[in-house]
């Protein structure tokens, strides 16, 4: 339920987020205001991969090269096509011009699309500095809080203890919105560190929030560590059922941390035959 509320809360963030042009007018920056108005007027003329749309963003840049938004809009299709070189040129320019708006976007994308964990950690560190102790907020697609991403990147870089510390701290914050996979990732971290009881505690919370093939699979592995054969079998079977029903981790673009495949479950099923 809390996950649902979180998603509803984030809907405006997940959707189109055009800057408020009037802000530039109040600041007396009429050129940026003009570019912003042009961008607003033509934001939806064509599909984002259509070169005619790219040309429109370039026109907005020509009106005011200090306006960050169109750089980010050109970067978006490049990241989706996996073009790391062009994406980085444009997103860097957006970050240079408006770090408060686009650092979190760059941080969110470099680990997700390019497995650049160190780059994401560096961007999060910069963002923390800019935010001066205030909340650094969620990823650009709203799936995670950026501190959860920090934990995942630390894990990928072989720092599981630090990862657990960062993720625990975030989860324990009073104002933290539980996202769809928070308990799962932390549970898997504990499991990989050999703390099966703690892993089960978290994975059961995941089960209550959002029951998926993945958390049943890892619960099974945790029970296996504890030599609880029956619970292991039950959960592997449940993992298979959920997987086949389509209740599993999903992302349109990338493989997610701790995502499993049918072959993973089948391998376990073979062992228990």
């Amino acid at each position, binding site marked *: 339920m809390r996950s649902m509320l979180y998603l509803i809360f984030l809907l405006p963030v997940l959707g189109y987020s055009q800057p408020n042009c009037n802000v530039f007018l109040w600041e007396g920056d009429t050129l940026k205001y003009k570019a912003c108005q042009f961008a607003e007027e033509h934001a939806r003329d064509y599909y984002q*991969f*259509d*070169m005619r749309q*790219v040309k429109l963003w370039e026109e907005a840049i020509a009106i005011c090269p200090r306006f960050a938004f169109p750089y980010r809009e050109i970067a978006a*299709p*490049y990241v*989706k*096509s*996996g*073009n*790391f*070189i*062009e994406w*980085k040129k444009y997103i860097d320019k957006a970050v240079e011009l408006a770090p408060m708006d686009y650092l979190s976007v760059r941080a969110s994308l470099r680990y997700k*699309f*390019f*497995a650049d964990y160190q780059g994401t950690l560096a961007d999060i560190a910069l963002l923390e500095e800019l935010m001066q102790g205030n909340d650094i907020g969620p990823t650009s697609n709203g799936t995670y809080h950026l501190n959860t991403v920090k934990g995942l990147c630390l894990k990928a870089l072989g720092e599981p203890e630090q990862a657990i510390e960062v993720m625990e701290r975030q989860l324990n914050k009073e104002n933290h919105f539980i996202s769809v996979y928070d308990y799962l990732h932390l549970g898997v971290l504990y499991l990989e560190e050999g703390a099966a009881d703690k892993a089960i505690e978290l994975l059961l919370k995941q089960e209550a929030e959002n029951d998926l093939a993945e958390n049943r699979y890892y619960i099974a592995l945790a029970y296996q560590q504890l030599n609880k054969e029956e619970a292991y079998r039950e959960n592997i079977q449940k993992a298979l059922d959920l997987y086949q029903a389509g209740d599993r981790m*999903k*992302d*349109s*673009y*990338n*493989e997610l941390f701790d995502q499993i*495949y*049918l*072959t*993973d479950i089948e391998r376990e099923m073979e062992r228990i035959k």
Partner: protein
Amino acid sequence: MKVTFFALTVFFLVSCQTTKKVEPAPPYLDGILFDPKLDADTFALCDGDEFTIQYFNNSKGLEYEGGKPAIVEAFEKNYVLPKGRTNSGLIRIRFVVNCKGEAGRFRLIGMDEAYQEQAFPKEITDQLLSITKSLKGWQPKVLRGQTRDYYQYLIFKIKNGAIIKILP
């Protein structure tokens, strides 16, 4: 007069047959048009270049028989670590999968760890291209009930010549 007319007609017909159709500029960002120097004649799109979608457009991400583990396995089995190579960075191979699940029009770019363009040695890129071309499990993509041609890519994270991760 008759001879002249006949000669002109023949000339016109021959011209029509040999005049190469000029391809329009790619309508899509990062689009891959047919290049006779690089691409096999045997690979054809079902619906033409302007209707090629992206791999994520149907929200199902990478669709391959056996899932991503089958792709990873193909590279684990067939990629041979080149000796003495210290190259690191990312290599992207982008290509088109047609509505029959056949892949073609492979294009490769590389970067170093600072996102700067980098040419990797052929011992690395030739292997990656060859293994990618040998993958036969691509699933046709269905969008709004129609089977479509689509762009797909694989990114290889390389550390000292070894593949340490495959994306997406």
